[in-house]
């Protein structure tokens, strides 16, 4: 019917303009809906540094603190544990922590102990595996055991996909996890009091 009629170019132009305007409104609305998925202001605000008292922590013991909803391990390593780090040096994928997971190793941390020099026996690491975010479990006992190699020197095992980490939180080679565990910014307020999420340079 309408095929024989000439297209009214003025009306066609208006039609296109109306569709375009409607499309813009539609896209903007979609944008608003998609944006509601972002972390809310409240979620962003939660993330203050936390203080931990380690005066009761004995060598070989580990405690866990919560920082930004994530577990932060504080492990006081024994001399034998510290000695194991030299043995794992060539078995870990990134001994110098050059490929950071979510945060770079703080510059004040040693490469092997991944701790501050004056407290090199205390490991402070975010206990979240760089593979898919599970929290690895403690496997401090050396020697052969299920899911672990026979020359195991002590470390952590992620229950989800079997990634293993040494006692400095460095991931072993050929494991699903691509990076070492995060070491959060931290500093010692006293010899036995640590603050996590804050250092001399300010809050993380």
């Amino acid at each position, binding site marked *: 019917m309408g095929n024989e009629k000439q297209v009214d170019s003025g009306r066609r132009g208006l039609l296109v303009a109306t569709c375009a305007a409607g499309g813009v409104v539609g896209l903007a609305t979609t944008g608003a809906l998609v944006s509601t*998925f*972002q*972390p*809310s202001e409240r*979620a962003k605000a939660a*993330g203050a540094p936390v203080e931990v008292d380690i005066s009761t922590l004995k060598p070989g013991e580990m405690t*866990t603190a*919560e920082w*930004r*909803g*994530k*577990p932060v391990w504080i492990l006081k390593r024994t001399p034998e544990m510290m000695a194991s780090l030299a043995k794992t040096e060539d078995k870990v994928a990134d001994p110098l922590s050059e490929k950071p997971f*979510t945060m770079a190793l703080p510059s004040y941390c040693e490469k092997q102990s991944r701790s501050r020099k004056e407290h090199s026996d205390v490991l402070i690491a975010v*206990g979240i595996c760089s*593979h*898919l*975010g*599970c*929290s*690895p*479990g403690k496997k401090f006992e050396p020697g052969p055991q*299920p*899911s672990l190699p026979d020359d195991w020197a002590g470390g952590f095992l*992620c*229950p*989800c*996909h*079997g990634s293993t980490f040494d006692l400095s939180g460095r991931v072993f080679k*050929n*494991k*699903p*996890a*691509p990076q070492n565990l995060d070491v959060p910014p931290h500093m010692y307020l006293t010899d036995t009091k640590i603050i996590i999420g804050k250092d001399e340079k300010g809050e993380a």
Partner: protein
Amino acid sequence: MAFIEKKLPADAPVIEKALGWVDSRFPLTKLWNDQWGQYYAPKNFNFWYIFGSLAMLVLVIQIVTGIFLVMHYKPDASLAFASVEYIMREVPWGWLVRYMHSTGASAFFIIIYLHMARALMYGSYRKPRELVWLFGFAIFLCLMAEAFFGYLLPWGQMSYWGAQVIVNLFGAIPFIGPDLSLWIRGDYVVSDATLNRFFSFHVIAIPLVLLGLVMAHLIALHEVGSNNPDGIEIKDTLDANGHPVDGVPSHPYYTFHDIFGVTVFLVIFSAVVFFAPEMGGYFLEYNNFVPADSLKTPLHIAPTWYFTPFYSILRATTSEFLRVLMVGIAAYVGLIYLKTKLPSIVKIAIAGIGLLIILGMQPWGLDAKFWGVVLFGSSVMILAGLPWLDRSPVKSIRYRPMWHSYVLIVFAIVFVTLGYLGTQPPSPTHERISQVGTVIYYGFFLLMPWWSAMGTFKPVPKRVTFKPH
């Protein structure tokens, strides 16, 4: 077109008059006849053809029990776990509703996997049923999403850490990954925000899409007609009335046939609901009876059983395994070059993509975690390609070479083995087995264009194999 009121004699029964009144305004009788009453289905359906109806039944069970669960459940990170326990212990009969829902989830996947196995055996996805298959595939994806979102709601340890792992899968995507997983969670960790949005997806968004897709699946099926164990088009042989000679109207024949199947299913379903709702930790995992703790991953975490075959493929992808994959891709591109008649531009494109993937798999390229996610995703997506991967000249396994059925059996064993390994803690031996399984899994699909056309095919009869009973 002028409106025509359907005329009925004055002494017609009231019910007929009412139906006539409706039919003049809404195609009620026509819909019934097109979709079921006068829908001619092949008369040689066997045991494998019950799963479509059963899937429909379970969908209804899930929606109805779900409605009642929402009346008592609280989607709040501090209340969710306790509200589920409240349903279990204090709401009258709440335990029954909840166990029906949790058992229904697993039953749904058992039924759907068997439903898809049927399609694989009898070539039900072959032309002209490609869209039936694709809609069904989309339903399967929705079902997986539905199961995943729903699993977070009880807010137990498995809920929490399962969601953590799956959301972090998106984090493996280069560049946008970390922001994408943050956007999905709505927080820096799985939290109340995550629980609330998953609740919304689970109770409204996905079910809406699911219902639409189920309708599309059925409309497409009833348009082209059902396949059958002989893989013959019954519409090729019609009787004087234009109905397929080898077909029977679904009502009453398949109505009563399916009611029998439903009865058997409900006996088994009730037995599970009443006597083994946890199914030894497979339907409801023990760790999920511990409230979510964001600081401690349970020592053994595994997805619910229906995800584990794909999960095993994810775990099998280590940096060592990438070398096997690179050889596999190079060989596959070579095979396409030598053995297909594709236009050379397509071949060059495929070779280019192959080369890019191999480069990306280099030690300095993208890490094994990313490729694990790619393999995990593509192991599901590859199912959508079946209508085009299968090049067998006949549809049904009955008329294909005997060894084709052995290939199917090996594939089924591999699928179940991968599923079993996915429920087990990681170990070097299991890793090797799942790597072999992954190679067979992909080989089955990617080599299908060749193996499915090889061998001596049996002649396909004109009429279906059917013994009156």
